[in-house]
């Protein structure tokens, strides 16, 4: 029975990881040249312009419109109506229709958890609009529901959460 001598450590081959190349990257050699351009300057110019434009808009708005500051807070004087920040006014509007546990906790909680689980629930591999009719319509309906309740809570509700048309009076602070 022949025994193989273990080679001395010095002559053993040693490896260093220089890169891990994914399978797709190797087969890509066969693919046609990708339709890509250099990030500098093409993408960076676009990002720079977007940031510059945003800065200008923000500066102009801040110079023209003052951030609101109402009277000093008074725990004994609730303004009527007392409204949450605008992005929570959808929930406050829903509180008008549903019991607090549903509208205040379960609905927003379900929305967040549902959104987080979306990629694991929606197993349809295609990204084309045509193949995703169900998920797109469900999402659109839900988004519109939230948008409508936010708008209603912001501009159509007055004292005692009564319906008030915006041309009558707007109870809204940003």
């Amino acid at each position: 029975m022949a025994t193989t001598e273990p080679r001395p450590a010095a002559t053993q081959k040693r490896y260093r990881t220089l890169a891990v190349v994914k399978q797709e990257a190797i087969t890509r050699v066969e693919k046609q040249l990708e339709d890509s351009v250099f990030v500098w300057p093409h993408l960076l110019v676009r990002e720079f312009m977007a940031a510059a434009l945003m800065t200008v808009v923000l500066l102009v708005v801040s110079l023209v419109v003052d951030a609101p500051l109402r009277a000093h807070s008074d725990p004994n004087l609730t303004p009527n109506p007392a409204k949450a920040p605008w992005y929570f006014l959808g929930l406050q509007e829903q509180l008008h229709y549903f019991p607090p546990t549903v509208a205040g906790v379960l609905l927003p909680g379900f929305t967040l958890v549902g959104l987080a689980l979306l990629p694991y629930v929606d197993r349809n591999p295609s990204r084309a609009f045509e193949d995703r009719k169900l998920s797109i319509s469900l999402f659109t309906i839900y988004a519109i529901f939230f948008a409508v309740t936010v708008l209603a809570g912001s501009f159509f509700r007055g004292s005692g959460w009564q319906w008030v048309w915006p041309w009558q009076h707007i109870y809204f602070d940003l």
Partner: protein
Amino acid sequence: MSIDTNRTPQEYEVLSGGGAESAQMARRGITRRQVLRRAVTLGLGVVGIEGTYMALTMLYPNLAGQFGSVITLSNKSKYQSAAQKQVLIDQRGIFYEPSAKTYIMHLTKDGADFALQGQTLQNNLDASNWLQDQDGTYWLSLYQVCVHLGCKVPFRDDCVSFKCPCHGSHYNVDGEYLDGPAPRSLDRFTMSFDGSGNVQVNTGKLNQHIQRPDAQTRILVPPTVQCSA
């Protein structure tokens, strides 16, 4: 910014920025690209300078109404004048004002024992921030801090003078150096009266140049009482 997808990426690189070919074109002379690049650099520089200016101005303390600006104290009538020898802290002659960190001295017209006279006296009074009111009484606003090492100097009724508890620097009623380690007389503020007779002290303007007095510059005679530590 629209992307012409009819061209290949390579053509696109050359035509709309970047690429070795366009760089060569740029090197031939000042081109649109160069002007643009300089304009962007200049614009960024201007924005940067403005931002820095805004940041520094915003952080610089606004001193209005606080120590470091002109502070309006009480009416003249609160500060009762006294002769130099009869001064009592906060009762007559010398008054402490914590908001302005100052002692207000108010001496009667004849109560000041001047060691000088005539024009020499007048020159020294002016140089030492003395203020003579219309009724002839003398006013002076002294900074409370000892010019030796920064302790607050109390006025000692028993000494009829200021005596620093830290290292024993000793100053006359008008802040003139008497003895001790202090290098000069007490510093003083510019004082004035507003329209309704209130005392105003400009705490942003400090006179720190009153040297130890000698025979030619000593304004008031030293107190005669002994002052123990």
